[in-house]
Structures are given as structure tokens and as C-alpha cells.
């Protein structure tokens, strides 16, 4: 699975960082930063939850 983030859409809720800190981080302004664009399958569930919980639809998943 590949992860894409749309930074202009991000509202800095921090939700993705709480759910999958191995995959998402925030810059100094709170905007999402991708740490790992192709996380391993063990993170599938957390990554899916991050995309679902993001209030701004700023996280997109591309199935491999």
C-alpha cells in the first residue's frame, strides 16, 4: 500500500500522528509530514484508520 498526503488540505488535527506515528509526523506548523510512503503490511490497519479518521480527507491510500 502506498500513502499520499495532501498538505494544503491538512488542518493540523494531529489525529494521524496519534494513530500511526511510524507513518505520519507534523512539521513545525503542525502540517502533516509523511515519514514512510510505503509502510509494511503490519501497519495496514493503522494507516487505514488514519485515512478514515483524518477530518480533512488529506490522506489517500493507493492499494498496491
Amino acid at each position: 500500500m502506498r500513502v499520499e498526503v495532501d498538505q494544503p488540505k491538512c488542518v493540523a488535527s494531529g489525529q494521524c500522528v496519534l494513530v500511526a506515528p511510524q507513518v505520519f509526523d507534523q512539521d513545525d506548523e503542525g502540517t502533516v509530514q509523511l515519514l514512510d510512503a510505503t509502510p509494511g503490511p503490519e501497519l495496514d490497519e493503522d494507516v487505514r484508520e488514519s485515512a478514515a479518521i483524518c477530518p480533512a480527507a488529506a490522506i489517500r491510500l493507493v492499494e498496491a
Partner: protein
Amino acid sequence: MTDTVMDTPTGLPEHPMPRATGCPFDPPPALKDLQAERPVSRVRIWDGSSPWMITRHEDVRALLGDPRISADPRRPGYPHRSAATRERDRTRNTLLTTDDPEHARLRRMVTAPFAIRKVEALRPSVRRIVDDLIEEMLAGPNPTDLVEAFALPLPSLVICALLGVPYEQHDFFQRHSRVLVHRASTREELLASSEALTDYLDGLLAAKLADPADDVLSTLAVERVATGELTRRQAAETGVLLLVAGHETTANMIALGTLALLRNPDQLALLRDRDDPKLVASAVEELLRYLNIVHSGRRRVALEDIEIGGELIHAGDGVIFANDIANRDPGAFPDPDRLDLTRDARRHVAFGYGVHQCLGQPLARVELQVAYSTLYSRIPTLAPATDFDQLEFKHDGFVYGVYELPVRW
């Protein structure tokens, strides 16, 4: 006429709806009926208008995240909370009441201090504040009011330190904050309190501009006002929003959450006896879901025709999102009326959804996690000091809670 949905002459249920007597934690039964029978339907509000009411969790998320929905109260059709808020919102535009791209511009100016890493760095000082407040409470009279002794000072101290507002003046800003979140406040009261707070923040900004410190108001003054990105008035209005949103909400979650736990001793025991940060985090999400204290509904207006739940919402129609009943949607949360600290409640909408989702949520989470994980273990004998039926709930507040919570130990 059904027993629970109150019919008006035109057949529409009146909003807001009353909660059932004896069930202060549960949303109004009439809302539950609407969710089951007609999840997207019209209600009648105080000014005689009939906005749509969205009650299902899935629909709330879909529509609050939809750019065809506007949060701008100056647009015709917007379902105002009262005549007083309608008047107030005519002249102010904070991030809460603007749409993108202006909303994004304003929000981005204040996101930095709420990033997870920055808020985590505050955790030790939140712990210190909690420890000190508990020490003071234990040294004071027993019984005492938990709201005054603990629930209100905690978020107030935290937000004051973050913003750079002197806590010594808390009587002043807490009094005016209460007016802003009270449904029955008259137009005059609301405007006067709004003005008093804005003038106060404006004065602080002027002082910070001359002599900046390491706090959010100084950053706003130096990086936004001095550069001309915001007028001082706009910066002051943003400051008021942060100050008010930052303590009334969290304070009510602490007091009402404590009451809910005292009424559910098995859940309280879980939290007290297991020293597990994962359980504490999950307990906070579940209490946010279960209590949904911002209970007067998110207010919006449709910019285009929108089809949802078999209904057609027209451009210009008002829309109210019933987050409280959405958080009790059996389609999203099995056995929704049960408080279960171990469930996965993360998808609750107690902080709203879409681009306006709560800016302060990371801070609120840290405060609530520290409060809930410390208070009951440090005072294992904590108990209500008054009869449950004697407690007064904030039915008339935009933010729900208890006015006082007398406790003993």
C-alpha cells in the same frame, strides 16, 4: 403526535429537544427517534425557520467534510443559536465562522502550538498543575466543589500559560466566558462580554507587541499583527476564541466525566486500578463520545443542492449536525448507550469533523488524560457529596456539564 417527538402546529419537531428526566448523560430521546426513523429531516428552531437535522454518524462525517457546506453565519439560511449570537456573528469573523480559503489562512496562523510534539512537551507541566491542584484540594474543606477546585482551574491555568494571559485575572475572563456559552444570555450581555474580552485581549496584544514573551499571543502579535497579516482586532478575536474554547469545554469534560465515572463504578475501577496509558487514552475518547458536551449541534448552511439520506437539501438551507446522537449511532458504535472505556471510540465526532475539527484537541486530550489518570488514583475514596437528583446540569448551555459537583473523600 408520538410520545417523544414533540409536534408543533406545522408538524416539525422543535430543536433543541429536552433530555429525559433522570438520564442527564443521554441525548434527547426524540433525537434517537429521528435517527432511527428519519435520519435526515427538518426541525423547527427559535426563529421559526426549519433547518435540516443530520443525525447519523456516517452522514455527519460525510457532510461536515463537504466543501458544499458553509460555516459562515452571515449567509442567509444559517441556523443561528439565538438572536443574540446572530447579532454577535454579524460583526466577527474568526476561523470558526469562515470558509476556506480564508479559514485555512486564519487557522494556519495558530496551528503550530497544537502540534502533537509541542503538546506532548507540555505534559510534564500539566502533571505539575494537576498535582498542585489536588494537593490544595486535599488541604482544603471536605466536601468541596470539584468544578471550582479542580475542573475549571486546570484548563484555565494551562491555556493562560500557553497564550500568555495572566491567570490572576481569571475571575474576569471566566465570568465573561460563561456568558458566551450560555444560551439564555441576552443580546446585550453577549455583546458586552464579547467586547470586554476582545478589548482585554487587544490590550494584552499591544503589550506583547512592545515586549514579546514566549507565548502564543506574542507570536500572533509579532508574526501576524506587526506584518499586517492580521489587524490587532482580528488577532484579539482569535485570542478570545482560543481562551474561551480552551477552558469551558475541557472543564466541563473533567467534571461531567468524573460524575459519569462515579455513576459507573466498574469503569472507574478499571481506570483507577490499571496504570495503563493506552487504557487512559481510550477512556478519554470514550468519555468524549459518550458525553459529547458541545451538544447544541454544529451549525452550517448549504451552498449547493445536496442529496443525502434520500432527501434533497437545497442551496441556502440551514443544516444542524447532531453530533451528540451521531456519537450514539448503533451503526458506528455497538451498544452505543453503554460507557465502555475499552471500546475503540476514536471515530467519535465530539470534536466535530471536517476542516473546523477542534484545533485544541491535542491539548484537550493531554489535559483529560492527565486529569483522569491522576485524580481517582490519588483520591481513591472520591465520592459525590450530594444526591444525584440535586445536581444541576447545563441544559441551557452551548457546552453541557454540571454547574457544581460537590465531592468528598
